[in-house]
């Protein structure tokens, strides 16, 4: 038996110290009784539970959770962090994305991807310095996540910068959002930088902030500070 599993067993109940392969009916009865007394949880892969619990101890979760009140958004943010951890395991990554789509739709997986790519953490860090109260941050963070497809744009290397600027201007005029965020990765970074240059000469009542690290490049389009949070 695996040593990790073995280490779980001796504490269960007096007399139940055998490995799972050799559990007899009496041992299982004892375990079932202890379960009904709420002393036990039966798990399959300890790794899955550890993976979820690990995200609850992460710095990203500590930062973001205080600004999340919506139960479903909390779960999606945790799952976004889990997706990040599963990036080296494509099969598990895709399986989790499929489950998110089935439960929350395409919008749900977009929220999780925003978290997976570190965009939410950057946004929270940036908005926290501009808001006047915790309530404003909560409102802004939840609004942007609940309207993820309105306020986040994933830039592709094949995008036309001019057309994207047009699209962004339409979004700004139609929704008057606190912020729009552009995300680019690897080969799309150059396109995103071109978009930023075009926006710089074109924007009214909004200003730009950008962040580049490793293989990603983010552009935040914020409403002018005089208007933000008013």
């Amino acid at each position: 038996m695996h040593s990790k599993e073995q280490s779980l067993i001796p504490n269960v109940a007096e007399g139940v110290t055998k490995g799972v392969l050799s559990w007899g009916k009496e041992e299982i009865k004892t375990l079932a009784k202890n379960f009904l007394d709420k002393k036990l949880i039966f798990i399959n892969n300890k790794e899955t539970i550890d993976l979820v619990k690990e995200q609850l101890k992460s710095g990203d979760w500590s930062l973001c959770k205080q600004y999340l009140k919506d139960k479903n958004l909390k779960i999606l943010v945790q799952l976004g962090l889990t997706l990040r951890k599963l990036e080296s395991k494509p099969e598990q990554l895709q399986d989790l994305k499929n489950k998110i789509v089935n439960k929350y739709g395409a919008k749900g997986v977009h929220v999780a991807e925003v978290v997976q790519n570190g965009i939410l953490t950057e946004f929270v860090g940036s908005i926290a310095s501009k808001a006047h109260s915790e309530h404003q941050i909560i409102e802004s963070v939840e609004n942007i996540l609940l309207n993820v497809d309105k306020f986040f744009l994933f830039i592709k290397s094949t995008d036309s910068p001019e057309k994207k600027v047009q699209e962004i201007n339409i979004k700004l005029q139609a929704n008057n959002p606190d912020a729009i965020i552009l995300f680019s990765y690897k080969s799309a970074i150059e396109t995103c930088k071109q978009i930023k240059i075009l926006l710089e000469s074109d924007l009214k009542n909004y200003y730009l902030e950008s962040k580049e690290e490793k293989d990603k490049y983010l552009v935040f389009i914020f409403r002018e500070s005089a208007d933000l949070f008013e």
Partner: protein
Amino acid sequence: MVELISIKNLSTEGKLFLLKELGYDSDGTFVTDKGGIKVCDRYIDEPVKINNMLIFPGSTIILDDNPLSIASYLEEFPDAF
């Protein structure tokens, strides 16, 4: 304190016996209730396979072993473990 018990390597026969002790059953692949109705994971609304089940306290909640279900359970029962 609640203890986690891995049933990953428990034989199918052992898992079936455990389910029966807890008031459930199985058709050999899926977890069922005593009437033979498949038990669905309450968070992903999919039938739970006997070889991929988690069993949590709280009126005996049987879930599929995946991050979405576990995260949802912990959101509903934050002090579970």
